[in-house]
């Protein structure tokens, strides 16, 4: 039985290296997330208008909480919908 390392694949089995995620707020030095700015907050929502998790947005914990607070305020003031089918 061929040993593990002897198996040769046709194509190289190298998994492509995706760029390291970073927290955009720390990198750009933003300190306040405005709940009135719907366009900016839409970056953190998916098509249904639901909030994206931290592992997708790459935000640090502190700013992910600020973003979610801002999104909830924007939803309360009807700037962002609670649920929709085609947001983008």
């Amino acid at each position, binding site marked *: 039985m061929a040993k593990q390392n002897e198996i040769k694949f046709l194509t190289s089995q190298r998994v492509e290296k995706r760029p390291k995620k970073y927290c955009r707020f720390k990198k750009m030095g933003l300190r*306040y997330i405005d709940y009135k700015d719907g366009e900016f907050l839409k970056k953190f929502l998916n098509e249904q208008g639901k909030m994206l998790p931290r592992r997708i947005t790459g935000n640090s914990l502190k700013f992910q909480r600020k973003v979610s607070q801002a999104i909830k305020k924007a939803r309360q003031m009807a700037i962002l919908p609670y649920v929709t089918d085609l947001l983008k």
Partner: protein
Amino acid sequence: MATENKLQSYELMVIFTPVLSEDDYKNAQKKYSDYIKEHGGNIVHQDAWGLRSLAYPIQKKTTGLYFVMEYEAPTNTNATLEIQMNRDESIIRHMVTRIDKFAAAYNQRKRNKLATENAS
């Protein structure tokens, strides 16, 4: 009696019913800014967004007259302000948020950017 309350900065956002006429909208804004002034606060900035479509219908209306006001007031005025707004029929939704120094700096920067754009 508590000494003169320390001024805290707040931001008030109000959505009026779209059926409001232009001057009703104006003096509604004036009513609330005067209310703040009476109670020892001062207005930092007023910003009327006018008619905007809502993301979801509120009270069967799909558009609303937005009004944003940033002000400084002693800490006991917001409670009575809240009662005023609940009593006011023309307001369909309102929200008061506290402004920390980062938010104040952000709003200030945004206003300067807007001013330079208009000026240029």
